[in-house]
């Protein structure tokens, strides 16, 4: 009688496991073991390290000890006392904010410029996507060659500006480079968002006598909300995890003014102070969580309001 319970299996296969009948339909049609390998790999190589990251920062793990002992808050005291903790938090947050701003600003402008599906626009969409395809490390070197004091920009302008040597302005320069590298991806997502706006909605706005500005602010911008959510979230969170561009352009300098979390970890890990690097990694985790959760909730709520 087992198989008669499953209504959508009208032709019972002989020799099929009898147990099947008592399982809910979903378990038969979309069995868990399709998801299991992914869950295992993700748990083992992403979640587990993040859990371990709540333990190792409280130890003396380093290349100088053969065994690992619990030391409490020593590592956090060290990074707080030498000023690197607050500096890294400040630098990373500022970096993420500016990078997300530039990436989204450039991307939105490009999407609006290249919105119509003409051959000309399709070609230039690909051109503006090129920087996304070039590795971030390579991007960093290109801009180092452009912006060095003996570099190409100064030689064209006939100036002698230390673009990458200012403790105040260099962070902004580096975030502009970050925005440049990823603007193509934001552009694609904004283009997708623009394409999703129904044509009759724009038509109606035009009939009501709305000009291009009015149409943009009253119709297209609100309709872009999901694209904005996705773009702002990925840009903000992604740029908190930045490394390559900063490493290739400034290496964290001048005077540690661009030393984001990952640059710090890279440097300290290279010195063999693993637990201390791990402490910084835990702080990064906590900072990202405190930024990400309210951000996602806030943007989602905004989507519903608009």
């Amino acid at each position, binding site marked *: 009688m087992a198989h008669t319970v499953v209504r959508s299996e009208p032709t019972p296969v002989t020799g099929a496991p009898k147990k099947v009948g008592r399982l809910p339909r979903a378990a038969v049609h979309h069995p868990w073991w399709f998801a299991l390998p992914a869950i295992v790999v993700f748990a083992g190589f992403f979640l587990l390290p993040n859990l371990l990251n709540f333990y190792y920062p409280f130890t003396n793990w380093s290349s100088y000890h053969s065994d690992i002992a619990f030391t409490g808050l020593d590592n956090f005291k060290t990074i707080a006392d030498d000023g690197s903790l607050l500096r890294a938090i400040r630098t990373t947050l500022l970096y993420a904010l500016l990078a997300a701003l530039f990436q989204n600003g450039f991307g939105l402008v490009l999407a609006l410029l290249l919105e119509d599906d003409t051959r000309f626009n399709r070609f230039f969409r690909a051109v503006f996507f090129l920087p996304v395809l070039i590795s971030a490390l390579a991007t960093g070197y290109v801009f180092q060659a452009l912006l060095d004091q003996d570099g190409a920009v100064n030689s064209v302008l006939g100036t002698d500006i230390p673009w990458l040597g200012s403790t105040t302005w260099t962070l902004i320069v580096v975030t502009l480079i970050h925005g440049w590298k990823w603007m193509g991806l934001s552009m694609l997502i904004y283009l997708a968002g623009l394409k999703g706006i129904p044509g009759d909605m724009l038509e109606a706005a035009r009939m009501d006598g709305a000009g291009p500005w009015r149409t943009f602010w009253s119709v297209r911008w609100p309709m872009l909300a999901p694209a904005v959510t996705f773009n702002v979230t990925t840009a903000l969170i992604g740029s908190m995890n930045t*490394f390559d561009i900063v490493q290739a352009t400034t290496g964290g300098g001048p005077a540690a003014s661009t030393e984001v979390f990952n640059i710090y*970890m890279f440097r300290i890990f290279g010195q063999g102070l693993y637990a201390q690097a791990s402490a910084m990694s835990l702080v990064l985790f906590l900072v990202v969580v405190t930024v990400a959760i309210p951000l996602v909730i806030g943007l989602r709520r905004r989507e519903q309001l608009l």
Partner: protein
Amino acid sequence: MSPIWRYGRPALVLLLAGLAVGVPLWLVAVTSAKPQAEAIEPNLDLPRSWQPGSNYADAVSEGEMLRGFLNSLLVVVPSVLLVLILGAGAAWVFARRKSKLVSAAYALCISGLLLPPAVITIVMELRQLGLANTRPGMIAVYTGMYLSTSIFFMTGFIRAIPMELEEAARIDGAPPWRIFARIVLPLLRPVIATATIMVMLYAWSDIFYAFFVLGGGDRATLPLNLYQVASAQLYLNNWHLVFAYVVVMSLPMVAVFLVGQRKIVSGITSGAVK
């Protein structure tokens, strides 16, 4: 449309493209063809004497480019395949089943989109598993890191596929694995293209995680080699080699993009923004 905008818009696009993308690429191209003496202070001039051939040959021999290329392929290709296959299986279950447990598992699996990977403790874990400094270790780390991206894109995509397609096959008596392989996977083509290029892009250019997991040495990938070539310029600039390297490293990604371009765009359209 006003005439200013009609002619102003293409002009603005040309100007932006020339300044923002043209200038950096031009710098890369001309510098990679210059002799060292000319390349020490990078500028936008054409080379006075052209020597692209020997620069690229030097980048290949001094930069260990062929080994790096092979090493990159050996970790990136398996990572991408695993991310796609495991991700598709999980996304199918997450998109079709409805229960608290499924929602929880889905939320957990896409948490990697937001959370940063704990790179330092990954090293510790890999050492304990005997996978530190190995390719399988690197593949496991990339797969774990980028599964979230593919699961997120694919789940959104599958939810938009009508259930009837699967039901028709089920009535014909097809078991789940056949429905998955014959119906779900082929329909996923556009989003697979998107996930492929995203994961390839990240893994092909990654240096941060490769530095911790692989280190330098025999298994160094292309970006690690580039980093080494560029870091060697502490005493003498070798921009000509760096940029020859940059060109060779970027070309495969440009090729992949050109081949999959249309599918990538449609995949992003349906996956990220609905």
